[in-house]
């Protein structure tokens, strides 16, 4: 079919055409960026913690005095061991998606001149690393002799296991085994093993890259490592075990305070940690749906107006030989041209929005394939929206041409 008459007609409706195109352009820009943001959030929510989330529960006690802590640990581990479904119980300072603990800046030199990374140091009693279920990829797991005694919140000299991403960041391309790092000048750590993944307690809170920058130090439970308990359960048993463990904890240590917020299964901690991202994803989806709806309604409204305005011309065209299909195709083509014009404008706008978002948020460039996808979506939307009015136009009988109004 000929495109020229469609162009000629559109030129007579420059303002309305421009408005719809502008609307399409804005819709295209928001659609691309909103989809991109959704993908980003979804990827964040898929973050790998490296631990067996579904069979882990964490119990946190507070409000006890340091001098009784050793005794508390012994009583709690004993009590937890008696709960049906508990495979093992361990003392640990925190778990992925739990409260921040053991965060410090580390340096490869004792002088602490440069601090290349801020990491989370997990401190765990015997068996806790195995209970977490992290995957060892190099070196060795801690042996009984490796478990050091704490005289402060951090061990002053300890063997540690670090994650692959931290190793790659500190010693790019090198072998991390046997390497050393320092913190606060006097605190010295030597790498004995590398694990595939072990997310920091609040992954993403210190930037995307550092989500997996953690280390694990084998430590004997005692006055400086007490109150946090990791329970390994049979698969699927974690929620029930947690309920029993909370009751046990309150019974064994009525003078302590059970931190209700922190005492959760690791799966629930994860759910709660990403609650904001889920909320934001829902909002973005809501925006996209209402945006497409409003755009479609705008197209329907304007197309209906044009059909009404051109009834007589349609009648004349039909009277001199145009088929219904010709009329239908005319309106579909007209819409296609307007949407295409809008998409062209929208590509520029989408990139401008993306640049603005990149400045304010940690976002990458908008991938190129988003644009053709958005264009196709808007073309389909436009064609569907205009179909109703176009069918009504096609139904105009040729006899209209003979009437005066």
């Amino acid at each position: 079919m000929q495109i020229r008459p469609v162009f000629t007609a559109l030129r007579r409706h420059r303002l309305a055409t421009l408005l719809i195109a502008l609307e399409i352009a804005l819709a295209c820009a928001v659609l691309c960026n909103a989809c991109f943001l959704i993908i980003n959030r979804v990827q964040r929510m898929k973050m790998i913690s490296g631990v067996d989330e579904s069979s882990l529960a964490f119990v946190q006690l507070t409000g006890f005095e340091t001098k009784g802590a050793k005794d508390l640990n012994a009583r709690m581990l004993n009590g937890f061991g008696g709960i049906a479904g508990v495979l093992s119980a361990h003392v640990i300072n925190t778990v992925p998606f739990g409260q921040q603990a053991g965060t410090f800046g580390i340096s490869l030199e004792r002088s602490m001149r440069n601090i290349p990374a801020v990491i989370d140091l997990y401190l765990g009693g015997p068996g806790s690393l195995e209970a977490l279920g992290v995957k060892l990829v190099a070196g060795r797991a801690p042996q009984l002799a490796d478990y050091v005694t704490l005289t402060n919140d951090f061990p002053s000299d300890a063997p540690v296991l670090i994650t692959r991403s931290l190793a790659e960041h500190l010693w790019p391309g090198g072998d991390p085994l046997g390497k050393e790092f320092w913190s606060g000048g006097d605190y010295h750590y030597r790498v004995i093993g590398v694990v595939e993944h072990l997310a920091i307690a609040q992954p993403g809170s210190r930037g995307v890259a550092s989500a997996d920058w953690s280390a694990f130090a084998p430590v004997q439970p005692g006055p400086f490592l007490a109150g946090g308990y990791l329970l390994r359960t049979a698969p699927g048993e974690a929620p029930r075990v947690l309920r029993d463990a909370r009751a046990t904890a309150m019974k064994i240590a009525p003078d302590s305070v059970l931190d209700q917020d922190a005492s959760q299964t690791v799966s629930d901690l994860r759910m709660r940690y990403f609650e904001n991202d889920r909320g934001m994803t829902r909002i973005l989806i809501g925006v996209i749906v209402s945006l497409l709806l409003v755009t479609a309604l705008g197209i329907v409204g304007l197309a209906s107006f044009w059909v009404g305005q051109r009834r007589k011309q349609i009648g004349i065209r039909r009277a001199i030989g145009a088929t219904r299909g010709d009329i239908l195709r005319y309106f579909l083509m007209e819409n296609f041209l307007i949407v295409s014009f809008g998409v062209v404008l929208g590509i520029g706008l989408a990139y401008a929005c993306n640049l603005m978002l990149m400045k304010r948020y940690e976002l990458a460039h908008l991938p190129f394939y988003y644009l053709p996808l958005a264009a196709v979506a808007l073309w389909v939307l436009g064609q569907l929206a205009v179909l109703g009015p176009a069918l009504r136009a096609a139904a105009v009988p040729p006899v209209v041409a003979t009437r005066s109004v």
Partner: protein
Amino acid sequence: MFGYYLDLAIRSLKHNKVLTALMVLAIGVGIGASMTTLTVMHLLSGDPLPGKSASLFRPLVDPDPTPSRKHDTPMDVMDYRSAVDLWNAHRADRQTLVVDSPVKLAAPASKMPPLMPSLLATTADFFAMFDVPFQYGSGWSDADDQRRSRVAVISASLNDKLFGGANSVGQILHLRSTDVRIIGVLKPWRPSPLFYLVAGGRFAHGDTAGFYGKPEDVFVPFSSSLEINDGYFYQFTCWAAPKVPGHLIDAPCEWVSVWVELGDAGKVAAYRRFVADYAAQQKALARYTNADNTRLPSLMEWLDYNGVVPGDVHLQAWLAFAFLAICLCNTIGLLLAKFLRRGSEIGVRRALGATHAAIFMQFLIEAGLVGLLGGILGWLLTLAGLSLVRQQPTPYADMVHLDEWMFLTTFVLSLAVSLLAGTLPAFRASRIAPALQLKAQ
């Protein structure tokens, strides 16, 4: 004339109900989305102490003595000695120290199991400086700070929980292993954000919702709480490891916030000099290395510096306004269609003597009426949107409400948008040549 145009507008809107509904829907949805996010922005970016904030300042110094480390900006909080030195100098109209820590609390008078609320260690001036409202009793005096009195002020919510809201002044609380006497109970108090503890926003990657949490439940003199809750204080950061965890008085750590009240510009300038002189003196004593790294931001400057409004809230506002722009385009298009369709009516009115301006006014009033209807829909959608926000698990969810300003803004914005949308179509309609239209009849 206005009444007549209004009548015409109502007739015209009734004439084509579907088109009218489409326009009202577009404006209403756009307004609802933007006003929801705008209200959240308004609540989160507002002044926590209107009328008072301009006289509140936060001195900042750089106490890190490590010679090799050079900071571009001072530390967010201070070490114990710097903070107490500035406080003891009494160079401002008022000055206070603040630091929070979790504390085990039990009330002998109530049968509740022990709780673990947040304790705010602060000084006598805190309550007067920050206009903290009292329900019963009062705060403590400077002498209490000096004597390390075992007294406490508690929040309204803790008073409700432990004493059923009754006057609990004179009651005893166990804080860890110490007995303290309640001397004051606050009225419900919910500053937004919890400005006096805001710090470290630049490291938060936009995730700053935590700044909007509730105030602490227990307020105890700074000097007393250091003894009561020794071992339970958390550092903001340390330049070397503390010897005893949680015992920060002599630790190489930054953990105490200082606030001062300065009545006029002269005092501000004088205090700025005082802080700079203090830093220079500390450098002379070899305690500081970066003496020139001092600042004195005002409360609002400090909130701004910390970027307290969460990044997600900004993002939602941008989205909502992009959406409003789309709705605006849509409405312009629909109004244009509606107005230009009435060429013959315009022709008759022009032929009978109506001026361009009269036609323009008539159509603008019609657009305004659409805006008003859209405003009502937008208001309802805003209320619905805000109730959704209240169900989100964010710390500020309980504060979200539509105040009278935002209620008014809803309708002002809606009218402004519709009039803006109506201007171009009304102008085009008023330019229609009457002769052509009449001939076509």
